[in-house]
């Protein structure tokens, strides 16, 4: 018997032994109509606690109670929800009994659109007044039969349904003063999200114009399918050009710009998902440099397979998320290869390699416009590993690390690319270290943790540091960060992000399944630490991330399970497992409110690193 036929006949025997079973269609339909049965409400629940949802047209409104409020069928959950206001249309979807007068700040189970799908019974969040950030969904208009709703979170989402209300057609996300087109199966729209200073938004299609007054900061223009082949602009009355597109907008025959189909995911939460990106033209790798320029993701260097005779890589590529296309980068300066770190300055990508354990250190700058590299003077740098490299807006700061057998000493060095000059800064009030976590908050470089030599002088002993400091490069001064009394000595870290002004550091904690991840956040404004809500099933450590993408933190734990944290609601959301083989040391890059995860390695010596990746869908 061949090996293949052996596997086949064994699995066939297994299939034959599967117990007979039948699904219960009636139960499925009942559950589908009555999901989260505990969320049905009566009109006695306070208006201030209401959540507004996408609504069906008048012809579809169904009243199931002869003596109760008018009901509509939610196109998202299929459940009947009482109408408590016709203009604006407000539906009540608050579960369970509640006082008639529910004051702001009261914690009650509440449904918002991002918890309608995938929410567990008993989910709770702080009650928010109608229309506030993170609050409910508000009907804002009816444009040529399309119903427009705004979902005011920190990311400013809007939803569009057709006149029947049965289809959620679009889901646009953007910050203030942004424009976009949404192309989905049933229609096309040009959408502008603007601030309160904008009185009108004008759309031009091949020079012909139409305008709207934005409502709740949103202006939506329905497009015909052939409009997508024309020259479109969206302009605010303040003069800001919000959008300009050519004739190659994606239509329903092509990939939608705002996909409603989760192409590569089993994750079922509404609005969440991911799609695979094209395979890169470079071999898989880890420990490479990466950056987001605002147009391209840049990748360079790194390590292929440690067991290779020469695992250090000296090539790179750039990825354009708008077109899902890759292009090779030109060759970097001679000799540069292997593990690399980098910063993006706004117009240049500065990359450093060290050729540990023997050196030398090299520094180069890549200009994506000219598509060329320039080697830079390395100033006072010695070759090292585990150093900190951070862009402050004017300078690249280098500190710490481990050169040869000796920890790099004392003072940080700062390189100014505009003047091509170096300066040395004051020594830190904390021990020098390797692999600290760090962030630049606009005025201070915040540094915490890392690995230091043990006290007692044994050069072979290291331990994890649990202290930190902040450097002000302007006056070359340091201050120590307050100690966090809840962090045990010799605790390692798994990365950090800067989000909402807070410096968030991730640490291991004990949990039921062994070791999990917890976050602590330092607020420079108050000089205090707080602990983020725990997520008991986020397993130590990370396979990808953490990274801050606009207003949320993204991270994938060692099993590949993804999580996002929103400071606005102080809550974690489970994304489900990412749609690739599990890996470590993946490249993770924030692209606006999306995250690109690429490459990485299983850690097994015989395995090739990966060269595939995915992009999250906001």
């Amino acid at each position, binding site marked *: 018997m061949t090996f293949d036929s052996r596997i086949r006949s064994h699995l066939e025997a297994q299939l034959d032994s599967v117990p007979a079973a039948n699904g219960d269609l009636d139960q499925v339909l009942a559950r589908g109509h009555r999901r989260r049965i505990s969320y049905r409400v009566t009109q006695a629940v306070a208006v201030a606690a209401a959540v507004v949802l996408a609504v*069906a047209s008048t012809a579809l409104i169904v009243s199931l109670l002869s003596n109760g409020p008018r009901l509509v069928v939610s196109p998202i959950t299929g459940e009947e929800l009482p109408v408590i206001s016709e203009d604006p249309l407000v539906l009540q979807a608050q579960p369970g009994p509640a006082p008639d007068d529910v004051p702001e700040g009261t914690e009650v189970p509440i449904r918002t659109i991002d918890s309608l799908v995938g929410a567990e019974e008993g989910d709770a969040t702080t009650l928010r007044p109608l229309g506030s950030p993170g609050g409910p969904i508000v009907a804002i208009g009816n444009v040529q039969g399309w119903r427009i709703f705004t979902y005011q979170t920190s990311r400013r989402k809007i939803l569009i349904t057709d006149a029947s209300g049965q289809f959620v057609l679009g889901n646009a996300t953007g910050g203030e003063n942004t424009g976009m087109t949404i192309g989905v199966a049933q229609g096309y729209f040009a959408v502008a999200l603007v601030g309160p200073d904008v009185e009108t938004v004008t759309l031009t299609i091949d020079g012909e114009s139409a305008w709207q007054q934005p409502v709740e900061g949103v202006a939506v223009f329905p497009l015909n399918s052939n409009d997508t082949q024309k020259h479109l602009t969206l302009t605010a009355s303040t003069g800001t050009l919000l959008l300009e597109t050519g004739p190659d907008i994606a239509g329903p025959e092509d990939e939608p710009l705002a996909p409603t189909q989760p192409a590569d995911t089993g994750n079922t939460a509404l609005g969440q998902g991911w799609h695979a990106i094209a395979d890169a033209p470079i071999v898989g790798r880890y420990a490479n440099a990466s950056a987001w320029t605002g147009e391209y993701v840049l990748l360079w260097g790194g390590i292929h397979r440690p067991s290779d005779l020469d695992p250090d890589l000296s090539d790179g590529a750039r990825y354009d998320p708008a077109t899902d296309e890759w292009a090779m980068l030109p060759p970097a300066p001679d000799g540069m290869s292997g593990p690399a770190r980098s910063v993006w300055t706004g117009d240049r990508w500065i990359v450093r390699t060290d050729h540990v354990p023997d050196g030398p250190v090299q520094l180069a700058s890549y200009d994506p416009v000219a598509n060329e590299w320039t080697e830079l003077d390395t100033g006072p740098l010695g070759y090292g590993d585990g150093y900190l490299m951070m862009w402050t807006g004017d300078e690249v700061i280098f500190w710490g690390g481990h050169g040869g057998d000796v920890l790099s000493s004392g003072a940080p060095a700062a390189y100014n690319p505009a003047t091509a000059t170096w300066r040395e800064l004051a020594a830190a009030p904390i021990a020098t270290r390797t692999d600290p976590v760090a962030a630049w908050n606009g005025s201070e470089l915040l540094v915490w943790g890392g690995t230091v030599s043990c006290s007692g002088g044994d050069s072979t002993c290291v331990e994890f540091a649990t202290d930190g400091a902040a450097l002000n490069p302007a006056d070359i001064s340091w201050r120590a960060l307050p100690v966090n009394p809840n962090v045990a000595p010799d605790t390692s870290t798994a990365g950090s992000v800067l989000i909402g002004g807070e410096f968030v550091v991730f640490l291991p904690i004990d949990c039921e399944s062994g070791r999990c991840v917890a976050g602590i956040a330092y607020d420079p404004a108050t000089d205090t630490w707080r602990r983020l809500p725990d997520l008991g099933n986020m397993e130590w450590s990370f396979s990808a991330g953490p990274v801050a993408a606009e207003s949320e933190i993204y991270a994938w734990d060692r099993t590949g399970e993804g999580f996002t944290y929103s400071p606005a609601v102080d809550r974690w959301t489970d994304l489900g497992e990412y749609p690739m083989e599990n890996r470590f040391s993946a490249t993770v890059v924030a692209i606006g409110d999306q995250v690109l995860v690429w490459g990485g390695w299983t850690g097994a010596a015989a395995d090739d690193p990966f060269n595939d990746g995915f992009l999250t869908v906001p």
Partner: protein
Amino acid sequence: MSRTNQMEQLRWTDFEDFYSSTWQEVYRTLTVVVRDADLAREATDEAMVRAYQRWSQVRRYDNPSGWVYRVALNWARSRMRKLQRVDHIVIDQSVEPETPADPSLERAIAALPLHHREVIVLHYLFDLSGPQIAARLGIREGTVRSRLNRAVAALREELSDDV
């Protein structure tokens, strides 16, 4: 009949056909992959509930049954994690014949991680091609090839004394 009820009736009939033609396939495949018939039944039901709720979208997908399978597998995986099971070492006697005909192969397959086991099942048991498996799992063909190669290599290594 009101327009609402007409549309609901159409939707229900359409979904009923899909349910009838898909439930068994997803349940049986999932049972062999996760090696737990009760869990597979729950996961399939849960995925079908979600498919019904989103039927207006799901029915337009290229591969609705593949979507249901992926949702069911992910639900099962999450459930297994919450129950602190490790994917590749659970062996549920409800799936196994009392005396497996090939105990060493049984142990080797059970030791595979879920995402390797499922491509083995879809390829060898259901004779799906690489593109078909990719469509079912919502992954790239290259990823299917990679997973299948690694899974077969792992099985060969585990059974090297037998082969």
